[in-house]
Structure formats: C-alpha cells, structure tokens
C-alpha cells in the first residue's frame, strides 16, 4: 500500500477486496455443490476430510506459528471415538457420534496443549510428537480399536434419525456441509481480534507479552480449536470409509498433513485445501498407474522442490503474484 493513499481510498480498496473474496467463496461453494456429478463422490469426500484436517493444522502453524508434529493423534481420537460409538450403539445418530468424537479430540488437545505450549520451536514439536506416539501405542493396545486390524463396519446411519446417508451422494453433501462449517469457523477465528493476537504471537511473542497479552492462554485456545477440528475431520472420515484404522494415528499422518499444508501454502486459508487436493489426488492417480511404486518418491521430490523454490506454497505464491502485478 502506497504512503499517499488516503484513508478513504484504503477503505474502498479493502471493501472491494472483501467483495472479491466473498465472490471467490461463493464460487467455491457452487463448485463444491456440483463437483459430485463430475468426480467420484467418495474421492471428493476424502479430499474434503483431509482439507479440513490440514486447515485445522494450518490454524496452528500458519496463524499461531506452532508446529505440531502430533496432529495424527487428534485425527485418530476423533475417528476411533466416533467409530466405536456408532458401531456399539446403533441408536446413536451420526451427527451426535461426530460431535462426541470432536469433543473427545478437543479435550485431548487441551491436555496435550497444557503440556506442550510451555516450550517453543523444536521442543514444542518434539513434545507433541512424543504425546502422539503415546496415543499410538494406546490405540494399538486398547481393546476397542481392533489393534492392527482396525475398527470396521461402522454404520453410516441416518442423519438426525431421518435422512439415510447410505448413498454416496447424500453423504457427500453432509460431509461438504461439515467442511464448510469447519472452514467458516477457522475463517472467523483468523479474522477475529483473537486471530490478530495469534498473528502477533507468531511474529514476536515477547512483544505480545509486553503488550499485556496472556500468550499462553491464546496459544492453548488455538491448540484446542485446532485439535477439535482435526478430530472433526477424523470423525467425518470414519463415517465416509466406515472404518478407523491405525494409519490415522501413525506419525506418517502427522507428516502428511505438514506436507499438504506447506505445499498448498502455510498461513493462507485456501492453501490447505489446495494442498490436500493435490496430495490426495496424486496418491489416488499414481497408485493406479504403472508409476504406483513411486508414489512416495514423487511426493518427496515435489516436497523438496516446494521447499527449495516456492516456499510459500502454491496459494502463497499466487497471492504474491497477484500482489505484484494487479494491486
């Protein structure tokens, strides 16, 4: 923004920027509504679940500057709780199952958060990793998770006890609604005063402290929201695949979400969505092609290229491009 801009010009510019963003969101929602008629709904639902998971992770890394290496634990907790409840109590409706799974993850996030936010940087990452590994070993031993075999045959049930989610299309719209709600919550959080304080903490924590903010509380709340949303993603995923498996709790999953977020653009709202679509899409396409053996290698190469040459990710680079040329 140039120095000479009067406040009125700035305000107009901001308003039109907001309008453009609004149009973009409307466009995306329309795209989401027609997508299942073009692509395979189960594949789209998988993308949406992982996009929500990556967005939750991005809330923490991109806006609070906290790199958690244990987000798989929240995904798995949401998945297992929901899966267990829905298959044990047939009377429970899916939205309640998902809600309890989400709450379970948020509570776990609170416990993890209280311990982890006392440290910064690599120590924070290591603590979250260690705690997540503990959860992994808990899930492998606990009788209700089915251990190595996983939890299978979770019923999709009827939404509010009324609408059957058995068909892929019906379930898609439910998952899409869950994603939009989760995404809206993140959008709201980021643009609220609370989100501004988070950004301040990300940029310079001692300065935020000196301004009188209780940064630990802010970080903890962000951690709990992020954990809860990750749990929501896991719980929804259980409904889609009708199973919860140990793969969700494995540290590879924590790594995968970092990959998605960085590839799409950390600290941008749409980045995780793009990153998740790209990673899931590539995995899906490659695993059925003759290049099947090379999925990990190809993803690794892309990651290295991304870190070396376009560090702010796909959306981050696009934003820079727009800023440079069309401001």
């Amino acid at each position, binding site marked *: 923004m140039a120095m000479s801009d009067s406040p009125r010009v700035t305000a107009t510019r901001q308003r039109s920027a907001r309008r453009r963003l609004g149009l973009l969101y409307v466009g995306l929602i329309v795209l989401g509504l027609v997508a299942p008629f073009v692509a*395979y709904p189960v594949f789209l639902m*998988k993308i949406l679940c992982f996009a929500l998971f990556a967005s939750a992770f991005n809330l923490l890394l991109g806006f609070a500057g906290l790199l958690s290496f244990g987000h798989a634990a929240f995904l798995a907790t949401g998945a297992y709780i929901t899966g267990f409840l829905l298959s044990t109590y047939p009377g429970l409706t899916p939205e309640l199952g998902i809600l309890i799974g989400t709450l379970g993850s948020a509570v776990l996030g609170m416990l993890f958060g209280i311990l982890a936010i006392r440290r910064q940087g690599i120590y924070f990452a290591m603590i979250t990793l260690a705690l997540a590994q503990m959860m992994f070993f808990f899930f492998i031993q606990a009788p209700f998770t089915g*251990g*190595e075999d996983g939890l299978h*045959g979770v019923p999709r049930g009827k939404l509010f006890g009324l609408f059957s989610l058995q068909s892929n299309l019906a379930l898609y719209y439910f998952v899409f609604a869950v994603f939009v709600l989760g995404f809206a919550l993140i959008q709201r959080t980021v643009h609220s005063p609370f989100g501004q304080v988070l950004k301040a903490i990300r940029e310079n924590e001692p300065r935020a402290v000196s301004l009188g903010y209780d940064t630990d509380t802010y970080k903890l709340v962000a951690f709990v929201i992020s954990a809860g949303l990750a749990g929501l993603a896991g719980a929804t995923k259980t409904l889609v695949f*009708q199973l919860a*498996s140990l793969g969700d709790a494995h540290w590879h999953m924590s790594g995968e979400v970092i990959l998605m977020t960085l590839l799409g653009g950390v600290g941008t709202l749409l980045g995780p969505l793009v990153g998740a679509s790209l990673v899931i899409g590539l*995995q899906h396409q490659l695993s059925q092609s003759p290049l099947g053996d090379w999925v990990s290698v190809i993803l690794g190469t892309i990651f290295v290229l991304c870190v070396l040459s376009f560090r702010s990710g796909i959306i981050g680079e696009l934003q820079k491009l727009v800023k440079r040329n069309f401001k």
Partner: protein
Amino acid sequence: MNVIKYSTLTAAALLLAPGLAQAEISGDAVKIGYLADMSGTYRDLAGPGGLEALNMAIEDFGGEVNGAPIEVLSADDRNSADVGANTVRGWIDQDDVDLVAGMVASSVTIAVTNILEQQDKLGIVSGSAASSITNEHCTPNHIHWVYDTYPMANGTAKAIVDEGGDTWFLLTADYAFGHALESDVETVVKENGGEIVGKVRHPFPTSDFSSYILQAQGSGAKIVGLANAGSDTVNALTTASQFGLVQSGQTLAGLLIFLNDVQALGLDVTQGLQLTTGWYWDMDDESREWANRYYERTQRMPTMVQAGIYSSTLHYLNAVAETGSDDAATVREQMAATPVNDMFADDGRIREDGRMVHDMYLVEVKSPSESEGEWDLYEILRTIPAEEAFRPLSESQCSLVKG
C-alpha cells in the same frame, strides 16, 4: 450396453448351461482388481510379482471367458485401510470390477471384505495372515486362499513338539496379533505334552533384540518361538544369528516368515529355522514347472502367496466359464463345489466359512552347504494334512457356519 451383444451372450450361455437362466457376465467383461502393497514392507511377498502371477493365470486361461474379455486393474494400497477401501469402492462403483484379488495387510483385507459384502462382489484373499478373516470377520463374499496364522503357529508348534522339541521360549510382539499367536502356540505346546519355560514380550516395532535373545539363550529351552512378524522377525533372526543361538544348540521356530524373508536374510542367518509354508516352488514336478516359468518372467522364485494368486485366479475363471456368470454367489458356489487340483494344492477345498483348506508343509531352512542355488532354501520335513492344519469348523465363530 450393447443389446445385441448382450442377448447373443445370454443366448450362448443358455445353450451352454441349460437351467441357468440368470447366467450372464456383467458389463460384457470379467474385471479383476489386484490390490496389494506394491511399494512397502510386503512388496516382495505379493506386490508386483503377484500381479505377474495374476497375468500369467489370465494368459494361461486364454485371455477371455466364454468370449468375454478379462481385464485387470491394479492399485497399491500402501498398507492403509483407507486407501484400500477407497480404491475398491471406486473399482466397484465406477469400473464394475467383479473380483478383487491379492490383499495383504489384514487391516486392508477386513476393510475391503466389508465393502465386498455390502456391494455383493467377490474377493479372494491370498496375502493376509489373520485367521480372523474367515473366523469372526467371515463374509459370504470372500475366500481366503493360501494360509493363515492358525496353521502357521499351530502347525509349526505341533509338528515341532512331535519331533521332540518339547521345551519352548516365546518371544512375542506386544500387541493383539502377537498375543493371539502366543496363546495359540502355548495351547498347542501344552496339549501335546510340551512345556513353556519362559516368555518375553517386546514392543512393536523393535530394532534391538539383544536382551531378549540373551534371555532366550539363558532359558535353556530347546525351541525359541518367534511370535511376531515382518521386520520384528527379521531383526530377531539377525540378532539370534549374531549371538550364535542355533550354534549353541537351540532351534528357532518362525511362526510367520516367508520365502522372500529367508532369501533376503540369507542362509547364514536363517539356517536351521523351522517354519510352516503352504507351498514351496521345489515341491514336485508341477510346482517346479510353473515356478520356472514364473522365474523366467520375473527373475525371482514365487512365494506361496504369488503361487496362490495364480492358482486362485485360474480356479475363479474356471468357475466363471462353468457357470457363465460373474455373480458373486453363483461363482463362489461353483468354486466351493470344485476341488482345487493344480500346481498349488492337491484336493484343496473351500469350506463354508470361505477358508480354502489344503495340505501345509513343515520345512527347515537349509544350511549354506546343503543349498544348491540362490533359491534352494527349504527342506520339507513333513506334510501337515489339511484337516489338521486349519482351524476346525467346530471352533469357528463365523456366522456362516453357525447359522
């Protein structure tokens, strides 16, 4: 769908098999989806080699069934239940796949068989170990072909106790799978007059087995049983060899180890190891002939899983040709009604719980001096007859058996 072609086919099927009015091949093609770990831990057990075996079966069958072409799709499940389930759902919804073959990691297999049951398609499991696949997780839509943990553990334990190995030390992976193996072996050893002199549980996965192997050596047991799998077994065997466990007079019993593991570890490490296998390439003329053909294509000898994929695919295609249908229930019924007699099994049969039962073999890994080539690895000690090898139906929890 081409109506004329469709009605011609139906007419042809009616002529061939009078009385089968509903007989037809959906989508005018028999489509087989091959799902396996193509890039991870189980790659050498099934993986691309299994796909090759599947293709061999289709080529040997002639590439078409009653005029309908046979198509193959393949995918890497990366040992993830999500990926496996998602792929199979897509295959059935979009590609009209009739049969899913391969399937290794048991979490993937159980996820896939759930979907197969929902969508009423057929699956033949060749790679998985879990005996629960035809026990509490049995469905009318899948068949378990090659082996499972029951004969691998029970068969090995019983045979070894019979041969005089009556004192055991067990090294167990500390999770549900290991515990199940451990309790199976304990029961069998005690029932046959043996004794468990000690056991130790290790976390899953473990890379340093030194202290456990020392404990096993100190126990004075004649047999050290490895109730674990994959990289744990490989690491335990390597450590045991470094500590000279076999040289000091103890025998190792692998409860879940395969030809490709033995080949990769080498005979120096694995010599003297006793294990159970469902098939070995050097068993008889028929298996040797097939294995040599396979070797020419892949430069590797087939594992029992890869042989099982060939055998089960041929059996499936024969059943499709016989009934003129690719409907899951019809084909399965026909497969179960026909005994399996090929390079893989002699008089194998498919039970109502979906378990294909056939003779298993107790083998001992040769010492480097006995071995005459890279793949000359096993010596067959005894045949475990089919009815003794697998879990008897009287102990089954499968709903298809009870109901």
